[in-house]
């Protein structure tokens, strides 16, 4: 695959899917800045692995897996960083999201432990099976069932409380 072919197919895929994956990342992180950082990182990884991933027709799954695992890793890794960047972002970036601007659902999702949150989103939003979700999260199917049932229970409870309030 020539670089031109590689980039043409890559750009076509990214252009058509990027906003969808920005939403997935936002649902995972609850923050548009973190979501866009996550998507940017995932897209660079996808570029590196593009020939293999594209050949296997696994572009969406690959990108989704990176987003999900990276969001969980980020929440687990106890890094606290004051980071200055060397480059100024191009173009108008997303606006900061205040807590007040977030929907009750996004708030409720953020109250879940990261693996529960990811399990709920994969199973009940992105429509993955239990087995697919288990593979995506790198856990066994029993853990997925446990996470989704607890996650949904907490989600419903929080939403009911939010509605009542």
């Amino acid at each position: 695959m020539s670089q031109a072919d590689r980039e043409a197919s890559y750009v076509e895929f990214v252009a058509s899917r990027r906003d969808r994956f920005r939403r997935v990342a936002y649902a995972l992180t609850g923050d548009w800045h973190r979501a866009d950082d996550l998507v940017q990182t995932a897209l660079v990884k996808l570029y590196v692995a593009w020939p293999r991933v594209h050949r296997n027709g696994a572009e969406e799954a690959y990108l989704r897996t990176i987003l999900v695992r990276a969001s969980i890793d980020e929440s687990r890794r106890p890094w606290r960083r004051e980071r200055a960047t060397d480059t100024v972002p191009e173009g108008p970036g997303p606006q900061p999201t205040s807590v007040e601007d977030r929907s009750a659902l996004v708030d409720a999702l953020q109250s879940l432990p990261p693996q529960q949150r990811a399990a709920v989103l994969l199973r009940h939003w992105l429509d993955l099976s239990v087995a697919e979700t288990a593979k995506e999260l790198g856990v066994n199917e029993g853990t997925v069932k446990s996470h989704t049932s607890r996650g949904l229970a907490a989600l419903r409870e929080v939403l009911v409380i939010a509605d009542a309030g």
Partner: protein
Amino acid sequence: MHDLAEQIDAGIPAPPGRSADLDGVLRDGRRALRRRRLAVGGGAALAVVAVVGGSAWAFGPGGSTATAPDDTRLAGEPSAEPATDITDAAAHYEARTGELVVAEGWEIVERVEDPITGIAPTDFPMPVVDDSLGLALTDGSAEQWLIVYWGARQADDPSSGVSGAVIEPPGVRFDRFGHWLDLEVARLLSVPGGDIWGPDAAMYTPDAGLVTKPGWEVAERIDDVAGKDTLAVDVVRADDPDRHQWFLFSLRMTISTLHAPAPGYPTFQSWIEVNAPLLPGGGGGGADTGPSGDGDWPGVERDDLVAFSPGGALEPLPGVSLLEQRSSPDLPESFAGPDDVSAVALVEKDGERWFVLARDLADSPAQYIAVPAAEGGGTIAEFLELARERYAEGGGGLL
């Protein structure tokens, strides 16, 4: 559940603003690819030789077996039995198809995707590594750690594939799979002057200690700055004395500022004074003390199942059958550090099976955490998966 999907979809808003320019993504992608593909001649060959100190290399091109490349070892390095055939590996990519093949009787207990995908060291038998996996496997008695990889000799012809493996015997140089894999990959990707480290110019692991990025030097180092196994480091770029980075390391947490002096902190010492207490054990709590939000802990402390022998193995107590055990299971350091004695076992007592996770830490009595086998998964590997999740999430692990 269909309406649930619709509810969730309705609750996740459309992205604000527009996406950053795709050119920026492409530029970063090309840079990452270039970084991984750097043809580095002698420097890379030397690095690879250094890497094989405790590892064996095997290549399998086109479905047949080839002679292993130079397995020269550095004097004084621990040695391992060299692999002469890729079939010595408990798993490998089938060369023609790129499919992963796991040898009969072996089971993958840990798997890391794409650790070296995209790189092209000159000693590798393919132009670019198209696929790779880090694997820890067991056949119930022996264990093996691997980096397996596959690539096509001709980019547009997958049938020209060639596969290979880096094999590491557990326990020779490293106690934990993750430590070995991190260091092995870092060294494989290490190019003098290259930017493969990302923005960080220093890293710290229990095995490798403090390692600085090529071209950077330690300007100041303060050991045990916030208790045992903590470290404060000021590193400076050799060719630019104004470029500093500050790090606070503990075994479980890193705090850094990549463009020092950081705003509000005129000196390294002032930055340390504010941030060091945030390290776990540093008096400020740290990030790993919060609750995980999941209060269902299946473990219970039991002192009637097993006990550590003086040699560090688990021995069954009266009335207990020890069915299987592993020493030093690969678990997060919130359970046991690299120098601590730890083990996991499957035991049976009074007709009931239990998994027991045991640790003997330097400053406290040995602890034996038992989980009913029915709740811990069917195998030790599955139980360890559960334990890894629990100890990675914090909040008390299994208890």
